[in-house]
């Protein structure tokens, strides 16, 4: 029950700034403002992770999800994903401290030393699902000039790590209050793909804990990336 909300405090510790090596740590000279809007009707989104890194994408359509991504997609806990991005060319990261409700907007600012190879990864769980998440990974941002903007509308991905049975016991968000992460890979297709949407009890899946208001269509999130410094 507490899996969804217990990590709220843990997130504070993830707001780190990982500097490049060297005895003289360079001062951050660039700042991106990332503004996210939850476009769904009834899917709160877990605290949003925004990470800058130079490493590989955090997921790839058609490939199996990493365990770190599985944790985010099944429970909303982004700490493992933040750690894996930080460990492979991590530059800086910030994390929301509370869920982003339907219709809500919030901005995050992340500062970093100039690096032409900088990439942005953003991820959040749609918490009234088994393992749906929204995000963008390894978006090139190192060439942005001050004032430049990148706008994206994100689709909901299915992590492919948990069967979409929609039962109360497997949905960690307020619609279910059930379990978050577990290590089992119970989805018949263990691959990241576009989520097919939730069915809900109102649309004939009688064992579903979800209602019509929890249904969603793409896009599910609006993202605006601005270089402000």
């Amino acid at each position: 029950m507490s899996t969804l909300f217990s990590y709220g405090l843990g997130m504070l510790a993830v707001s780190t700034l990982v500097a490049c090596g060297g005895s003289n740590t360079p001062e951050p000279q660039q700042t991106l403002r990332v503004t996210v809007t939850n476009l769904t009707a009834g899917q709160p989104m877990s605290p949003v992770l925004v990470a800058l890194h130079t490493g590989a994408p955090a997921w790839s359509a058609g490939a199996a999800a990493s365990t770190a991504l599985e944790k985010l997609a099944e429970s909303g806990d982004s700490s493992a994903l933040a750690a894996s991005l930080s460990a492979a060319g991590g530059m800086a990261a910030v994390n929301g401290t509370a869920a982003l409700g339907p219709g809500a907007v919030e901005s995050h600012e992340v500062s970093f030393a100039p690096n032409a190879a900088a990439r942005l990864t953003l991820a959040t769980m749609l918490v009234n699902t088994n393992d749906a998440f929204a995000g963008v990974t390894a978006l090139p941002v190192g060439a942005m000039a001050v004032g430049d903007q990148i706008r994206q509308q994100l689709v909901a991905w299915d992590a492919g790590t948990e069967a979409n049975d929609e039962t109360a016991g497997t949905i960690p968000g307020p619609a279910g209050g059930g379990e978050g992460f577990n290590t089992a890979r119970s989805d018949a297709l263990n691959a990241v793909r576009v989520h097919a949407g939730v069915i809900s009890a109102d649309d004939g899946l009688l064992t579903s804990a979800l209602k019509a208001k929890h249904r969603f269509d793409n896009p599910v999130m609006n993202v605006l990336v601005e270089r402000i410094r």
Partner: protein
Amino acid sequence: MKHKLILTTLLAALAPLSSQAADLEISVSNLTAGIYFTPLLVAAHPAASHLFQIGQGASGALQAMAEGGDIAGLKTAVEAAGGQTLANPANGLLAPAQSAQAILSTTAANTRLSLTAMLLPTNDGFVGLDGWVIPTAPGTYTVDLNAYDAGTEANTELMNPGAGGAPGVSGIPADPSGKAGSGGTGVVPAAPNDAEPHVVHIHRGVLGDTNASGGTSDLDSRSHRWLNPVARITVVVK
């Protein structure tokens, strides 16, 4: 006169930018959870030709592709218009979460890229790309593709194995996922097909149900639904 000369000179200077041969590395990914693509047709062609157009009635060749997965007619038509094709680069069905790769070296006149494949199991759903302008600058380009409805067959969501693939014959010809049931009463009547426009439009998606031996649909709401986009095409311009 002077203006005309300048314009002509400008056009001559621009021509090489807007039409040039290109070596393309093409990858097509099925982004769905449970929908299979019939053999893909990828075509580079002149700006004036199309495999399909949204808001336009389907050609007979498009209907054959969308209802039965037969790309022969579309291939013949686009090649007759000067186009070049990659037919069936996946060597059969492209399963969920799978990708197919191929290389296409286009001629200068073939500035547009299009793609079609039928979605199984559907009555006449297909994934499509219509006339994407092939970039001239080297780089990697990604386009997400939607599911369209050919508008030629009512979306009964009833299986009609084999026979349903013929143009004009109601029913879904195959479900490679093996999750479809039977005995449904039909989401809509097979005729008249008055629940949708008779032009290419965004597919409404399938309903399905959880009753494998009855209900309204032979499809399974837990296995056969999708949300757009259903495919991603990545093009590397060399």
